């Protein structure tokens, strides 16, 4: 098994696990430093964990509902703990979002469980909730949890903070590392009609541990996350801007939705990321 080694100061470059990754890793030994795998994938298909025989793994997660009001069940938490120990991940990236919610009818006892994380109400109330949740969740792990900014597709009622203000407030209140998903950030800026360049400078970039890069598409009047297409130039522009200010520990290309993602594009984008982080 391979493990992420102690930080030598260099920025590690990796890929999110997807259908093209096992073959790519075998065909291009040493080109990437790690593969990021969601806990949910390891839970559903434990065989995917065997990639760690070839390349180290960083654990990602979408099950803890950090910004929600329904805690994850104990079985899920124990599963995440097991995978954190098994993979020896240096940290666990979790979405600053919710994936379960209380039922709308009081007579229903089961919470609503989704399969996709959702941007929470961005308010002081949620900031406090995240702080409470995170304090409880962090105790279960020997490695830090870091939080990933959500893409904002619509105005969440009751929000009193912008995306940047919300993320900043959470990072400040919880003293937690940031997984800066640049594509989510651009999506949020496009959908709320804000300037990504001036807004990114307001983020607590010194807290960035990891960066995510993926594609986005605009359909039906809204910008959407899209891991089946390459990141647009604006995402790389922001990445250069971030790297000029801080040195994250890792950068992950998330091109993991399509088995037809062109290898030539993947190689080109990896090369571009390597060049940016080495400069």
């Amino acid at each position: 098994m391979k493990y992420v080694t102690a930080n030598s100061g260099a920025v590690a470059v990796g890929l999110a696990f997807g259908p093209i990754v096992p073959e790519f890793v075998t065909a291009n030994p040493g080109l990437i430093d790690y593969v990021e795998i969601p806990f949910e994938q390891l839970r559903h298909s434990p065989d995917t964990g065997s990639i760690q025989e070839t390349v180290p793994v960083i654990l990602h997660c979408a099950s803890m509902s950090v910004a929600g009001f329904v805690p994850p069940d104990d079985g899920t938490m124990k599963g995440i703990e097991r995978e954190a120990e098994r993979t020896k991940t240096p940290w666990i990236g979790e979405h600053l979002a919710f994936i379960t919610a209380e039922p709308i009818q009081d007579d229903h006892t089961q919470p609503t469980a989704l399969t996709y994380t959702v941007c929470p109400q961005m308010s002081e109330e949620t900031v406090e909730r995240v702080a409470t949740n995170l304090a409880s969740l962090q105790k279960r792990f020997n490695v830090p949890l870091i939080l990933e900014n959500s893409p904002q597709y619509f105005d969440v009622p009751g929000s009193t903070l912008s995306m940047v203000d919300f993320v900043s407030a959470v990072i400040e209140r919880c003293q937690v590392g940031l997984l800066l998903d640049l594509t989510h950030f651009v999506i949020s800026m496009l959908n709320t009609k804000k300037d990504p360049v001036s807004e990114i400078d307001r983020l607590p970039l010194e807290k960035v541990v990891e960066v995510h890069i993926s594609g986005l598409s605009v359909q039906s009047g809204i910008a959407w996350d899209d891991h089946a297409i390459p990141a647009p130039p604006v995402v790389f522009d922001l990445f250069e801007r971030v790297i000029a200010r801080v040195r994250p520990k890792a950068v992950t290309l998330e091109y993991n939705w399509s088995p037809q993602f062109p290898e030539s594009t993947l190689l080109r984008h990896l090369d571009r990321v390597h060049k940016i982080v080495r400069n």
Partner: protein
Amino acid sequence: MIANRVHAIVAAGLENPELLARWKQEPELLRAYGVDPAAFDLDAIWKFAGLSAKVKHNGLRFDLPLTFRFLSVNGLEIDIFGAYAAHKARAGTRYAPTTEGRIVEFVDFLRNWLDFDKREHELLWDLVRHESALAQLRNRTPSLGKCRVPHIVGEIILHEMTCDPRVLGKLLRQKTVDPGRVQRDVVYLGYWNPGDPEEICILELNELGYHLLSLVDGKRSLADFKAISKKLISAFDELASVGVISK
């Protein structure tokens, strides 16, 4: 507005887009949950349910790569998967557990949902039937049992198309795609697995061959086909006798 109430409503709508439709028609229903209906962008939440449904169908990309590319380049993914999520919620059914089952269900949905007056919908229908036929044949080994009546050797799937989906596929593999360059033409195709998935081929048929093959169902006997042939000649004679056609 209390955050946990807001989350509960958004989650319920995402899980069951039928609720979103109901709330859109009767906003006051939302007020019963202690929230202001005007604060919720129900259309955007509906579209987000489409994104979620799309991601749940990433497994189909192995078999339907060109279909997904067509949806992407034409900006149709969110609308189609949003409608599909709502359709499943209305029907009260879950997505099939297997990729094969999901393809069948998705194609069934498209059959009823697509607007065939729109050229891009027609092209999508051609493409998804083309790819799903090939996927279906790849995943099955037909039995080659003997039969006393005319029957297909192996398995064949017949489709009448409005274009040649192979030409459309070539265009989609290019960087920029202009569906307007795809010529509208009735094309009859037979996707044939002669007994080995490695030997699947696509037969270009004329109209008569297409209809003849569609009659070969393993039940009609040679005598039945002779009777059909006689009826055809008799129909010609009758039409000629009243002067509708000349022989």
